[in-house]
């Protein structure tokens, strides 16, 4: 019974990972690819690790599994964030069907400062 549960959980995890892989391959631009992968893969790994914890049913292993999962949850979005941000700087193109780009023109290409669009209301500070 337990084994079946584990098998199901792991299979689910594997499917999510496969999904992420396919998504990475299929999606038309970088941002979309990241969108797909960050979560699907994290979820997939999380599930597989969960299966592992269930399989061993030991405190030391469970704690480690939790540690890994927490860590992945902390870091995966950051990876996506930093690389996405950098990609935008470098000018990695977006899919042609992209509807809006609020970020356009907000970055100072020299200093990498990012405006919010609300600055004028407070103190207009000139950059040199």
């Amino acid at each position, binding site marked *: 019974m337990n084994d079946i549960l584990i098998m199901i959980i792991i299979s689910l995890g594997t499917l999510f990972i496969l999904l992420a892989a396919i998504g990475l391959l299929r999606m038309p631009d970088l941002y979309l690819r990241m969108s797909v992968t960050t979560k699907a893969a994290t979820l997939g790994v999380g599930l597989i690790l969960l299966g592992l914890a269930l399989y061993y049913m030991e405190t030391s292993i469970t704690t480690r599994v939790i*540690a890994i999962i927490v860590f992945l949850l*902390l870091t995966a*979005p950051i990876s996506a*964030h*930093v690389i996405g941000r950098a990609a935008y700087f470098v000018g990695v193109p977006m899919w042609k069907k992209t509807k809006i780009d609020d970020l356009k023109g907000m970055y100072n290409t020299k200093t990498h400062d990012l405006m919010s669009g609300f600055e004028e209301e407070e103190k207009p500070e000139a950059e040199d």
Partner: protein
Amino acid sequence: MKSLILKTVSTTLLPLLILFSVFVLLRGHYLPGGGFIGGLIAAIAFILHAFANGLTQTRKVLRMHPGFLIPIGLSIAILSALAPIILTGDPLMTGLWYEKDIAILGKIGSALFFDTGVYLVVIGVCLTIIFTISESV
């Protein structure tokens, strides 16, 4: 890198990672791990911190030049290697073991001190290298 998110997370991660590195160091004798990999993890924690917060900030956290960890670590390693010569007259690097088990750490021996030396050297080395490179752009 100017990223609020990264900054926040790296600050949180720093103590966690250091803790983890000590853990890896201590259990090396029984399971995968040890001074080397432990030192690397600790170094990576600081490097991450430096990426997010800038070098000056990380230096403040460290409070000393990482280079000083090198002679300190080396001294610990050398002393633990020399200990048998001084204490029991056995050859260099002979393992000395404290009779009883110590909680958490298990058996305490010169090997552990040695590994601690390795740990410190690795941190010192990695940080010296990375910091030096980042500084001299």
